[in-house]
């Protein structure tokens, strides 16, 4: 028995190490699962809003997830990381504490830290010295262009995204 358990545990460790990014997620909108991170690839399944998934990998605008029995690529914006449910803060966010993206370089000790609060901001007094420091750091458009060019960044034409339709259609124009 003992002899059997050790290789089994080792195997499990290997499996979890292979899927390094594995983390729980929640589906935000009904969407398809694809065989590749591309909407032109084969559809392998679907995920419904509110369903729990396991996030296995990320590539560009896509996440590889397991949802029930199917595994496939789903649009990044159709899933939220964390098990908090589809609608904002939920009970599951307590669970989220343990599932924060597990890159040790990003982990910052929470204990003893105090965030900015409203009182700090209300009491704040104008600080001309810091403002001068900020001004002194500003750069020109020409410097920014040259900086962009150094890494091969070039301006791309991308059309604006449409504003969403209002949920309740009280307008007479929306009935057609």
């Amino acid at each position, binding site marked *: 028995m003992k002899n059997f358990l050790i290789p089994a545990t080792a195997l499990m460790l290997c499996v979890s190490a292979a899927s390094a990014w594995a983390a729980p997620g*929640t589906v*935000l909108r009904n969407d398809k699962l694809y065989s590749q991170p591309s909407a032109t690839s084969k559809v392998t399944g679907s995920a419904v809003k509110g369903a729990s998934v396991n996030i296995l990998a990320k590539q*560009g*605008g896509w996440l590889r997830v397991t949802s029930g029995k199917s595994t496939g690529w789903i*649009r*990044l*914006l159709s899933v*939220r*990381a*964390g098990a*908090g*449910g589809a*609608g*904002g*803060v939920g009970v599951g*966010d*307590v669970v*989220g*504490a343990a599932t*924060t*993206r597990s*890159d040790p370089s*990003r982990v*910052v000790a*929470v204990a003893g*830290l*105090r*965030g*900015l*609060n*409203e009182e*700090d*901001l*209300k*009491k704040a*007094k*104008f*600080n*001309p010295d*810091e*403002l001068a420091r*900020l001004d002194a*750091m*500003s*750069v020109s*458009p020409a410097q*920014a262009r040259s*900086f*962009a060019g150094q*890494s*091969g*960044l070039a*301006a*791309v034409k*991308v*059309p*604006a*995204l449409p*504003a*969403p339709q209002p949920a309740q259609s009280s307008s007479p124009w929306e009935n057609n």
Partner: protein
Amino acid sequence: MNIKPMVLALSLLAFSGAAAGVDFGKLLEERINQELNKDKKTQPAPAPAPAPAATQNAAATPPQEKQKIDARQLGFALFGDYSLEEENRIGKQIAGDLLGAVPLVRDDKLQNYVNLVGNWVALQSGRKDVTWRFGVLDTEDINAFAAPGGYIFVTKGLYRRLGNEAELAGVLGHEIAHVSQKHHLKLLKQSSLIGALGQAAGSKVKDSDQAVQNLIGNGAEIMARGLDKNAEFEADRIGIVYAARAGYDPWGLPGVLQDMAALPAKDSRTSLLYKTHPHPADRLAALGEAVDGRLDAVSGKDLTKRFYRIR
């Protein structure tokens, strides 16, 4: 968000048409008081919640003591836009106040890097009339701020969580969108109309720094009040497009939102962020509706190697 003020503006317009030759100021006063009192009574069910700032301000106004209303001031608040000079003065005051609460990180390389990335993204916004300034604030709080006139701040706490330049570009793109869409100026206009009625009315802005401070409230509290959630959703939509136009991978901002969505809700470093922004899960969902497959053909750089890592 804009429905209520628009209704107000429209009804005022209607009144002004009918009121030629009548006591214009008195009519306005009655109409405004009516509008303010309506707030306190019942909200018609389908109406969207009024902007929090407006509500707070209305509540903070001393209980309707026979306030004299200057029709000219109201006219400015309703129909005028802040001039570029006024915008710059308002932004400078807010930025200086915010820096009074939290100083800049003492790391010139970091500040220079963020200014270079930020200016490059801001070049895609089409707003060329402001001087863009970017700063990293020395706090572990996870947040970012924008003020009129092109002042953009990101906290060290948020910066630490970023993994590449595209994520930084996405965060800055969101804040740049607040400036290009003049979200805070619209909020100020709204609150100076509904709230202060005279005290902080727009026409006093030109007088002195104190008048600008009166307009924005105590210190940098405007940064703690936040914007309407639709302004945040809009800034997300516009911000990722700015980043994509700058040649970055458009999934930077969504990646940061994913990271924040997985943070525990009770983390004190995000309490101000969540007080002033919709939850990241709601922002991801709203972005998902707007983006769908529209960015499928866009591929950009994430520039992980060049990303400046904070010490």
